[in-house]
């Protein structure tokens, strides 16, 4: 091997695995990536969908119970007025944020590896936000009056109070849901047109034809399209930060020990990205296996996501440390006690009823991501999948600790009280995971999960750049 060749091989080794394996032709890419949509229905897909529908039934039952009985059907009560509902809300909305991060922020930073996973992540965002938005509405008690939240000239002559964080939430979540949908749909249009043209029967042609509005790949349209798409990415980036900041304000601007802290906005945003990337991995790894997306979702993608998990995991850990430090440094015994209560089970002082959740949280969120210091772990599907599930659990536990456990021990011991969930709480939580899964399964079957036109563009770019780690891996050039 000559020195020049050696340098090339070393450079490739440094660059890691390719973002696209091989150089498939455009038609070949279309056929292989649209196989899940245009091919026959698979048995495994149907079975999984049926299983998830069982969970959706449980969820519907819990919803109906909540509507019929009221929120007395939940375990919430004073002092723990916010429990599973708001925990689920913050957890889901945080999961959604990774989708926007992948699709918008990585687009602005021109990260090529985002290309094949962004549609996936955006769909996850949409469904996660749909799940999240439900809980605050249910928590209203009379959800059929949810429209009272919006400022409209009512005959009562009253308006929302914009000095409270809760109307901010209304605007933040509804804007986030709308903008995520627009961004996702705008990205889908060229691929829907491709589906229309590659469709095998008339029904598909008509449905995808209508959904693509008559897209004809015109250069005059592409010009505005690219700029519009980039602008939406640019708008989504500060939006996603603002949304979770506002969610953290729901807690931070109150005076409850455990909530009242200035580190919440950045700590919540980091936690959102952490849990969202974990969820992307939990979904992507099985889908990649099932649909054979190995060509476009490579080890490089998995490795990069593992690195993001490591970084955001460290940020979240820093948040934990600072929370404790500030509780001590504030000199407020109430603040100090709030954290003491998380760590120490002590029957005499009636503390630490939920300490096992705290230890689980530390294990899942602080210890688990440390495995990604090792390259073999970052590239191992099984390790990644297990870690991603643990992180999802850990992040749910974190929100529960912050919300319910802080509420259970406030200033006066006479107003202390513990919380335990009812079956309706569990139904709304576990059922929402199944509903989310069902929506995702439908998405995988009926819409292009990998942004085809962007993969084609990426292939062309890699061809022009003349690298991409191909030579070192001995794959055929086209």
């Amino acid at each position: 091997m000559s020195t020049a060749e050696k340098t090339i091989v070393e450079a490739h080794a440094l660059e890691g695995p390719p973002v696209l394996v091989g150089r498939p032709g455009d038609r070949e890419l279309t056929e292989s990536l649209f196989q899940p949509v245009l091919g026959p229905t698979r048995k495994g897909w149907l079975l999984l969908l049926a299983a998830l529908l069982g969970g959706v039934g449980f969820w519907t039952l819990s919803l109906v119970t909540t509507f019929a009985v009221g929120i007395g059907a939940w375990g919430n009560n004073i002092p723990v007025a916010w429990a599973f509902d708001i925990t689920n809300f913050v957890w889901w909305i945080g999961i959604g944020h990774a989708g926007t991060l992948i699709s918008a922020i990585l687009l602005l930073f021109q990260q090529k590896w985002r290309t094949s996973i962004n549609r996936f992540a955006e769909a996850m965002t949409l469904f996660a936000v749909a799940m999240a938005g439900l809980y605050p509405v249910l928590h209203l008690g009379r959800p059929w009056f949810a429209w009272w939240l919006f400022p409209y000239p009512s005959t009562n002559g009253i308006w929302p109070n914009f000095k409270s964080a809760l109307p901010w939430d209304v605007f933040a979540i509804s804007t986030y849901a709308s903008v995520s949908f627009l961004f996702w749909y705008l990205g889908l249009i060229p691929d829907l047109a491709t589906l229309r043209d590659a469709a095998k029967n008339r029904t598909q042609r008509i449905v995808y034809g209508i959904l693509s509005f008559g897209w004809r790949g015109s250069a005059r349209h592409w010009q505005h399209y690219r700029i519009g798409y980039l602008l939406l990415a640019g708008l989504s980036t500060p939006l996603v930060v603002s949304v979770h900041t506002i969610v953290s304000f729901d807690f931070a601007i109150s005076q409850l020990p455990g909530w009242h802290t200035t580190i919440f906005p950045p700590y919540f945003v980091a936690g959102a990205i952490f849990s969202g990337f974990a969820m992307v991995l939990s979904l992507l790894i099985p889908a990649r296996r099932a649909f054979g997306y190995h060509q476009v979702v490579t080890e490089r993608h998995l490795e990069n996501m593992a690195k993001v998990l490591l970084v955001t995991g460290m940020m979240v850990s820093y948040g934990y440390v600072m929370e404790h430090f500030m509780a001590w440094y504030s000199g407020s015994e109430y603040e100090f006690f709030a954290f003491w209560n998380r760590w120490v089970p002590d029957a005499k002082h009636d503390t630490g009823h939920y300490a096992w959740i705290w230890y689980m949280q530390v294990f899942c969120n602080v210890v688990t991501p440390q495995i990604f210091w090792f390259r073999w772990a970052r590239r191992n599907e099984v390790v990644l999948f297990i870690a991603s599930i643990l992180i999802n659990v850990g992040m749910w536990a974190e929100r529960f600790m912050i919300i319910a456990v802080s509420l259970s021990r406030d200033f006066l011991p006479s107003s202390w009280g513990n919380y335990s969930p009812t079956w309706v709480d569990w139904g709304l939580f576990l059922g929402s995971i199944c509903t989310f899964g069902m929506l995702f399964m439908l998405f995988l079957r009926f819409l292009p999960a990998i942004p085809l036109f962007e993969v084609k563009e990426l292939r062309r770019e890699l061809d022009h750049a003349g690298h991409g780690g191909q030579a070192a891996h001995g794959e055929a050039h086209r």
Partner: protein
Amino acid sequence: MKHYVLGEFERDEALLGAARALSGRPGLTVDLHSPYPLHGSDEALGLKRSTVPLVALVAGVAGACSGYLLQWYVNGVDWPLNVGGRPAHAAPAFIPVTFELGVLFASFTIFIGLLGWYFGFPRVHHPVFEVEAFRSASIDALWLSAEVDGDAEPVASELRKLGARQVTIVPEVRS
């Protein structure tokens, strides 16, 4: 009567060359069709800079202003609430909603503006779709379409000379 001349090209260099040769002539509107955005198509067609950013900026500023005005009116003027003696018109507390509405207006304007105004959608029937082979324009082929006022035959033969693989003339049918 208007005609559309469609030509399929194999390589993007040939396509862009043909676009350069044909665009800018009176009575002829040239367009390119590709499965992904083509590098260099803007100059080849002599397209002006997109006005989308300007439109989005105006919409965003309008959204932010209306957000602030809304909060000022409902909390400061129409229904001032005394919460712990805080001022009824509280600028810092109004920032989140102002920002969100700015983003909301800008995003909707971009989306609706692109589809409705810049693209002229929905338009599921277009003369280019009359050619069955044009389906490849969104899969793996590059097409040039020229909207011709008058005789289309000379344009078609020129397209062949410029390297088009197959050339078709479609009359525009107005219903």
